[in-house]
């Protein structure tokens, strides 16, 4: 467990009342109005944190993710990444190599015809020496346990393997933070497990800040902190235990708590002596045995 506060922690991401609006047009291309995809979101994320962002479809979580590496710029408010202003167009490449992005569809982010080439794409763009690129490719593929497939064609890999190659492709930039935008949404349960394990290893071993955007509740129980978004606003935040101890509030935001947590909550309401915010099956068993 990390301490809830720490002195001397490196602050990596700070946003203050971040707003993003886009223009909605009608069929004739006339301006129809403005849509607030992100509405006054303030965040603070430290180096080494594992953050999960939850929210139903259209809650603005993907839009927020795209701000974190300067693909989108804030309409109002400020966003600082590692001390760099994301609105500053001179810093755009520094920001993008500090914060890597992994997207939902693994097929649409493969650039190389073989795995190794794909992982090398980012360092090639950064103008790194060939020998160093080779080292980075090797070490990134080892981290996601895909070194054995370095010469394979991405089209021959499973979804989970493709997504791990995509993570390796980002790792090869040596980022401080990786944002994963629903990386498991298109995977089967096995692929999901592989990817989540790889993400946790990055956070634990390499101390890379992880921002996991998802609507799968089972994946977020490992997070240090959860942010819940709805309609562009940050509606809840806290540790998984804190957030999951309010299942009614989560449901108001179109999210369902994990089955175990739900069961624990209902048992508690029915009068059993079970603590709030049960996350795993093991915890629930122990609590029931004790009560």
């Amino acid at each position, binding site marked *: 467990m990390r301490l809830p506060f720490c002195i001397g922690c490196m602050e990596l991401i700070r946003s203050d009342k971040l707003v993003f609006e886009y223009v909605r047009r009608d069929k004739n291309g006339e301006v129809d109005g403005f849509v607030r995809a992100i509405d006054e979101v303030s965040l603070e994320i430290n180096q080494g944190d594992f953050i999960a962002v939850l929210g139903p479809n259209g809650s603005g979580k993907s839009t927020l993710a*795209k701000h974190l*590496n300067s*693909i989108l710029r804030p309409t109002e408010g400020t966003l600082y990444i590692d001390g760099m202003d994301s609105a500053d167009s001179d810093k755009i*490449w520094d920001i*993008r*190599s500090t914060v*890597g*992005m992994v*997207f939902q*569809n693994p*097929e*649409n*982010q*493969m*650039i*190389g*015809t*073989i795995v*190794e*080439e794909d992982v*090398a*794409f*980012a*360092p*090639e*763009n*950064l*103008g*790194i*020496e*060939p020998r160093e*690129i*080779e080292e980075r*490719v090797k070490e990134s593929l080892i981290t996601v346990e895909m070194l054995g497939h370095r010469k394979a*064609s*991405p*089209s021959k890999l499973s979804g989970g393997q493709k997504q791990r190659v995509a993570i390796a*492709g*980002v790792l090869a*930039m040596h980022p401080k933070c990786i944002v994963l935008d629903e990386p498991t949404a298109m995977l089967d349960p096995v692929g999901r497990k592989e990817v989540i394990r790889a993400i946790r290893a990055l956070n634990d071993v390499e101390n890379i800040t992880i921002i996991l955007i998802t609507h799968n509740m089972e994946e977020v129980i490992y997070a240090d902190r959860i942010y819940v978004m709805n309609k562009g606003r940050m509606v809840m935040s806290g540790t998984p235990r804190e957030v999951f101890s309010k299942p009614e509030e989560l449901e108001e935001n179109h999210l369902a708590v994990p089955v175990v947590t739900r069961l624990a909550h209902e048992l508690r309401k029915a009068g059993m002596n079970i603590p709030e915010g049960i996350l795993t099956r093991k915890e629930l068993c122990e609590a029931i045995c004790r009560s």
Partner: protein
Amino acid sequence: MIRDITLGQYYPTESVLHRLDPRVKLWGTLLYVMSLFLFQSFAGYIVASVFLVSLIIMSHVPVKFMLRGLKAVFVILAVTAVLNVFMTPGRVLVSFWKIKITIEGLRTAAFMVIRLVFLITGSSIMTLTTTPSDLTDGLEKGLGWLKIFRVPVHEIAMMMSIALTFIPVLLEETDRIMKAQQARGADFESGNIIRRAKALVPILVPLFVSAFRRANDLAIAMESRCYRGGEGRTKLNPLKYAMRDYAAHGVLLAYLAAIIAVAVIF
């Protein structure tokens, strides 16, 4: 069924030609194709055949595989031969009704067909021994000087290699769309050719839509991995001339000299 189509006809094996720098192979192919039109004499054909046969042997690619490319152009070969046989004026060998076959006609027809066969086999040696991605790398580096004339060489090479990556993805997508439509009663297999072509329209529309969506996703993914054009970009495996590549240049020059000598002498 649609996924059986193989693209690019790279034949994976180990040979000197496989290891050669793609730039050498590109220039070599160009030079060989040009050389085929330099000579008229019988001796020239001997030189060109000796060169081609030794390349085929060196490539370690089965001859059967090599000749497969000829099947596709069989019609063109046949038409060329027939036209040459009947249309060339000269000493008449056989004649019936209005048709005359001349000795010169037979001669040009045979040489023309041999020339075309050499041309196709020669260029397929290049595609058989070079991976598509090496080929685009070779084009990018070998044609780099075109940048002076504002030809976007890097962009074209990048487009080619992305297209290569996406061919299997789009084939799979086509397969999926076809199955989805077959499940709802679409019929792609019966009827005449026009009806079948018409049945393809409802496949192409969703395919195009999804291709554009994929292109957009890919563009964002590339940008977020710091892609900003060819300026200042490095390569994981940069192309570098080795001794064998210089040697290959020597061989090519020797061949060119031989062909020119033959063309001048005979």
